[in-house]
């Protein structure tokens, strides 16, 4: 097993175990490790890979196999997927069998409520990190602003919002 595969396994196992509130909460840490520590991709490429993963159907953690594949081909894809999905899945298997015992305990509601602001802070950090990495011009800033407004204030479909951004980039990017 190469050093790259071991690094992929370590990074995504760690992220798997601390991804409270879902994948978007660990995005800044993923970017820090993949871009700043390992230098596998640039911040620009990371944003593009994230955008690609958002444009694909399914769960929103599809950036994980994409990074694995980008860094180390098919074996990278396998290692990153197993590292990201296996540890949290083992916890889920274990927890579902114990759920009846701890569901109604008062500490469960307290812990869950306590994690809400933590997740909110992490999602806000994700938005900031990805925006800083993606916006290099007034046009791109306008696209981010308009799509954020559309998505926050209307019931616009996420795929339509992404399509609008891509189209605006294609049409006006050359100016």
């Amino acid at each position, binding site marked *: 097993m190469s050093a790259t595969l071991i690094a992929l396994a370590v990074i995504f196992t760690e992220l798997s175990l*601390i991804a409270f509130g*879902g994948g978007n909460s660990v995005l*800044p840490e993923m970017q820090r490790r993949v871009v700043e520590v390992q230098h596998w991709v640039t911040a620009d490429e990371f944003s593009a890979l994230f955008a690609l993963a958002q444009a694909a159907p*399914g769960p929103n953690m599809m950036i994980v196999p994409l990074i694995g594949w*980008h860094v180390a081909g098919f074996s990278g894809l396998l290692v990153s997927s197993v590292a990201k999905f296996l540890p949290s899945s083992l916890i889920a298997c274990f927890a579902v069998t114990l759920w009846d015992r701890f569901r109604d305990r008062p500490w469960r509601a307290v812990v869950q409520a306590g994690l809400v602001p*933590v997740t909110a802070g992490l999602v806000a950090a994700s938005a900031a990190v990805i925006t800083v990495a993606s916006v290099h011009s007034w046009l791109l800033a306008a696209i981010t602003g308009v799509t954020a407004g559309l*998505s926050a204030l209307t019931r616009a479909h996420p795929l339509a919002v992404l399509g609008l*951004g891509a189209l605006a980039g294609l049409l006006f990017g050359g100016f």
Partner: protein
Amino acid sequence: MTMIDTDEDRTQRPGIGALFTGFLGLGLMGFGGVLPMARRMMVDDRRWLTAAEFTDLLGLCQFLPGGNIINMSVAVGMKFQGWRGALASIFGIIAAPTAIVICLGAIYDRYRQDPHVEHLFAGLAAAAAGLLVALAWKVMKPLLKKPAALVIVAALFLAIAVLRLPLLATMLVMAPISILLSWRLSR
């Protein structure tokens, strides 16, 4: 009680193959949020779970680390068919999206030097950032009237987005503080 009993009677226990195909279809359907689709598939269409069971299971999945929908596929598979069911479900949910995302990645790698493609992807990335900004707003909105929660939000934002501190260390400090705070306020 009679209502609930008849509701229970109508649920069907899926086999390993049904778990795989059910989640495979779900993986192909949802964009940017699979959860509403998941409810329709499991509660309304295939009748694996009652509405109450779905909500209860969602509560568990939100409590655990990892994506809600991935956790839910594993938990549902485990509940009905043990670890084989869990494996069939998670393979089902990630198989098609993984294949699609790799195809998109190959297209990006191949044509990224083309200026048109470059502009298209720059616009796509800016829109993906916009969706995250909107998501952050939606997650923050219920917390705006809770000063203690906002302090936690600000501290995490500062640590992760501004100072770029490692997440594991930050969580080990901030999660217990936040839980302790929520405990003190709930008494």
